[in-house]
């Protein structure tokens, strides 16, 4: 979610001047936010680490170019969104297969009620992983970061109406996908 505290201008100035200690403080403020979006988008801790690392390294080198035209968090969100979309383009062929394999594995492993709950989560994750990139990032910003439509529009660099439309399409696709998974499961029993 958006960090409630305003970023300290002095800290920002020190980071822009290349101060590593100040950058460490900035990292501590935003590390969970960056990692959460990356993890929920990519669905894989290793990929999330790669994305987060790249975002912070880029942030360090791009900070001198930050002019403050938009809020710092918005600027950072935009950087994360762009890096996430790049990541997906690289692995677009591998991830759906992997997600499918994980789903099959979890279906075969169900034993207790707890596992069934985990399986439901896995189904939702699989359904989210199957969404097109731009719909998935909208869902992650909405449900992981709890961003408003205005904040999402700024982070995704699009109109508010586009955000609403993408979320609407994402909900429809998720509902359809989850319904299909459920009916498939019922026919397997």
């Amino acid at each position: 979610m958006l960090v409630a505290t305003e970023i300290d201008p002095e800290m920002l100035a020190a980071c822009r001047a290349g101060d590593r200690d100040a950058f460490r403080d900035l990292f501590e403020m935003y590390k969970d936010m960056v990692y959460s979006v990356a993890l929920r988008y990519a669905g894989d801790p290793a990929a999330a680490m790669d994305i987060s690392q790249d975002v912070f390294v880029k942030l360090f080198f791009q900070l001198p170019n930050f002019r403050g035209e938009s809020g710092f968090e918005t600027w950072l969100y935009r950087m994360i969104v762009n890096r996430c979309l790049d990541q997906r383009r690289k692995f677009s062929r591998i991830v759906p297969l992997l997600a499918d394999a994980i789903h099959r594995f979890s279906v075969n492993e169900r034993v207790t009620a707890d596992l069934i709950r985990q399986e439901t989560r896995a189904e939702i994750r699989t359904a989210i992983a199957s969404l097109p990139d731009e719909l998935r990032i909208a869902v992650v910003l909405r449900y992981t970061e709890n961003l408003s439509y205005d904040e999402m529009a700024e982070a995704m660099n699009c109109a508010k109406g586009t955000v609403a439309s993408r979320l609407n399409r994402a909900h429809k696709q998720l509902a359809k996908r989850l319904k299909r998974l459920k009916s498939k499961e019922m026919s397997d029993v």
Partner: protein
Amino acid sequence: MSEEERAFREVLQPARAPESLWFRVEAELAAPPANRTMSRLALVFGVMLVAVVSVAGYLDKPQKAPRPAQVSRTAHQCLQCHV
């Protein structure tokens, strides 16, 4: 909030970044800046080399003589073929 939204929030809840993330970022930042500069220089040099080789190759290529224009399709009038 609907049941569906609650489920999405639960699955997509924020996570804590592992401690090792900072070490990875720090290691990347500590990498000598020369590496970045050198890789950019190498890229620029490579592009320039390809451009120079392409231009040189084009200029060295012997120019083909223009095809003789066929004045007429009739054998009697074509002086190139029927001298």
